[in-house]
């Protein structure tokens, strides 16, 4: 994933991946330095955070990532690492079944399938994934409240990428 001449560091993809694994683990904190990147993530609202002393003010209860280097390549950067960050444990991620283009509405100009805060059933269609003009609706798979929509309309998503989060009822 890293360009071969770039100093060793973490790409946005790496961080996404780490965050996913961190989320799935029972670890409380992750403090990682790779090259010029320093990644600090905590599930603890009282965590010390980055560049703060042990007795510093509480960090916000979200994962914090700092000094992520911009990919030094002309290849378009991977989707922003906003996916898993800060989603509480009990929220359920609706993930992309395959690579494709993410659409929030059934057709251009139509209202989105769902908005943040909206209540959904397990079989409610929440978005579309398009592969070469073939549109496949994605259902949430769980009843609850849409808490976060992670991807913007028309963006390319990869297999297994979180698209939105539902807080189960």
């Amino acid at each position: 994933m890293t360009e071969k001449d770039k100093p060793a560091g973490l790409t946005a993809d790496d961080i996404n991946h780490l965050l996913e694994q961190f989320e799935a683990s029972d670890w409380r904190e992750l403090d990682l330095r790779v090259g010029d990147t320093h990644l600090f993530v905590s599930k603890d609202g009282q965590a010390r955070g980055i560049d703060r002393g042990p007795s510093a003010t509480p960090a916000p209860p979200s994962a914090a990532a700092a000094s992520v280097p911009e990919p030094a390549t002309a290849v378009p950067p991977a989707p922003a690492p906003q996916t898993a960050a800060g989603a509480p444990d009990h929220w359920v991620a609706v993930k992309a079944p395959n690579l494709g283009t993410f659409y929030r509405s059934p057709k251009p100009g139509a209202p989105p399938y769902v908005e943040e805060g909206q209540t959904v059933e397990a079989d409610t269609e929440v978005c579309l994934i398009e592969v070469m003009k073939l549109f496949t609706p994605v259902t949430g798979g769980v009843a609850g409240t849409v808490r976060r929509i992670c991807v913007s309309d028309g963006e390319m998503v990869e297999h297994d990428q979180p698209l939105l989060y539902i807080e189960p009822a």
Partner: protein
Amino acid sequence: MPIRRLFVANRGEIALRVVRAAQSLNIETVLGVSAADRDGLGAETADRTVALGPAPAGKSYLDTRLVVHAALATGCDAVHPGYGFLSERAEFAKLCEDEGLIFVGPRPETIDQVGDKLRARELAQRNGVPLVPGSPLLTDANDAADAADELGYPVVMKASAGGGGKGMFVARSRDEIAASFERASNEAQSAFGDGSLYLERYIETARHVEVQILGDGEGGVWHFGERDCSVQRRYQKVVEEAPCAAMPEAVRTKLHAAAVDLAAGVHYRNAGTVEFLYDVDRQDFHFIEVNARIQVEHPVTEMATGRDLVACQLRMAGGEDLGLSQNDICIDGHAIEVRINAEDPSHDFRPSPGRITGWRPPTGEHVRLDSHCTADSLIPPFYDSMIGKLIVYGDDRTQAVQRLQTALDAFEIEGIATNLPLQRFIAAHPDFAANRIDTRWLEQTGLPAFAQDEDS
């Protein structure tokens, strides 16, 4: 227009090979992977990696539309299909081109034409390339028996849509025809969705030889000499060499000309291989098929000619005139490749996916290793079992065989079973050293001797 950003639509060693060739030409690379291949040397080496879909190939590497969508969405202008997977699917090449992507390979029509064995045989015939005496398409077992009587026994039944040895059965007398026909037809139907069969005369002592070609798409074709891939198991190549040391020069010259004529006849574009059976007793060769892709064994040709074939593919696909003259392409010395597979030759070649815990490949200036594996690679169970290719070079075949033995002895892989013990046994066998090999040697002599050696 030169390729700017290349989508690599494959996995394993060939994906890495293509990425590196592209990088040597300053072409950006995007690798499409399945969920099982997210981590690995290919993903680490490519400029960008995107996850196509879940591990099963049908939902990732083999999904034509998904791969083209990924190439377009990542801003690529070309697609390299490697070998296997979508490499010889004409509809994939066509979809790429319809969407404005350069397909690094032959034209879709050519893939279609040479992919159908009967059409390929017609093509060979039209261009004066000798065929193994054979029948037209068979209607039923009676038709097959009559055709076999005419050709003379033994005969081999083949699937029209076939490949990889599937749907192929030998009949040594008229009595065996009915059973062979039924089995071949059923296997062809289930493997290719097409049960059509034809018959060929069966050559008792044959070598598998093939000619590497490169075409400019306008009738200009260069050859890069021949390879000998006679060490086979169930029609799968195990060891490959360049050149075919057992072939007299006069036959070799005719062989190269036949391959070039055939490819020129379709205005072949990009890299391909024309495969022949060499009848050792008659010193005569017969056309088998055309492989419309870069092949697994291309490195032996690269070692013997000093040419980077994958780079040639990319430059040609980008519209560059390679300025090649046939006289510039010289075969010098001898190269041998052995395929390293995650399979256990002591237990009926059962696949052995799992975690590699030790990986110490041989090194040296005459040794090349094409592999995506490292000391902690996970070999997923979903795909082909090949984990690498070891290639050695020598001034002549004798020296190459010696270097192969040394390199194989030094190669250590831990954590999973591999076919290294079998490859060491072959390399050290007197028949192999003396080049007394034919396409049935491994199954009839090599493997029984290997089993006996293991028991003792």
